[in-house]
């Protein structure tokens, strides 16, 4: 089941030990990784940023983990993920879950077809040991192995 997470992360979708000063830089990284892996067009990055500006830090869904995403839209080519780890944690303004160390970019073509992927992602992010390996990793191969 968790094979799906690796499949959703295309070539270029994983960026490890990145430097980012604030949530905006994190969103740009997560968005760029989705663009580079051909899941979205540039427009989606702006949609992700507007979504955060509109609704704020609710996207920090668990301690240290942000799910950066917009709505299903014409800018989404194919459902997919990006995965960014941060060298230094970044405060997003989340009362209970700051600071962020792992940013997952998400693009979905509609509201339903990514549900199995979300279940697989949830299973990984619930596993503290796996999350810690992801946070420490500096090689994509280790990340892919941890996700499979």
């Amino acid at each position, binding site marked *: 089941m968790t094979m799906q997470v690796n499949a959703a992360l295309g070539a270029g979708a994983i960026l490890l030990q990145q430097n980012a000063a604030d949530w905006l830089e994190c969103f740009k990284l997560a968005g760029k990784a989705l663009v580079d892996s051909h899941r979205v067009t540039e427009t989606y990055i702006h949609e992700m940023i507007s979504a955060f500006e509109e609704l704020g830090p*609710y996207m920090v869904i*668990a301690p240290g983990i942000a*799910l950066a995403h917009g709505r299903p839209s014409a800018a989404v080519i194919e459902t997919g993920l990006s995965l960014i780890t941060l060298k230094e944690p970044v405060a997003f303004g*989340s009362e209970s879950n700051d600071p962020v160390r792992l940013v997952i970019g998400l693009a979905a073509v509609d*509201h339903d077809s990514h549900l199995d992927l*979300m279940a697989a992602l*949830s299973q990984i*992010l619930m596993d503290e040991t796996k999350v810690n390996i992801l946070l420490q990793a500096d090689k994509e191969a280790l990340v892919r192995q941890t996700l499979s």
Partner: protein
Amino acid sequence: MKIIAVCGMGIGTSVLLKMNAEKVLEALGITAEVQAADISKAKREGHEADIILTTPELVYQLEGMPGKIIPISHVFDLIEIREKLSAALG
């Protein structure tokens, strides 16, 4: 019992909340229909929901809806979800 899981876009947090709430409800032996929705869909179609699950930051967007609003801070924390749902179901 109707439960609606709500987030800003209806594809991320609400889906995770729905999945984890379903796990908790199954473990508690409670039969409930859980639906994921974004804020506007929740406001449009969520008036029959007995319980509204969301994140603390979005509570203000949903105030005034008839269902009981339960904020969940950590969407992967099944213990938090179980405790808050159990308390709400009394």
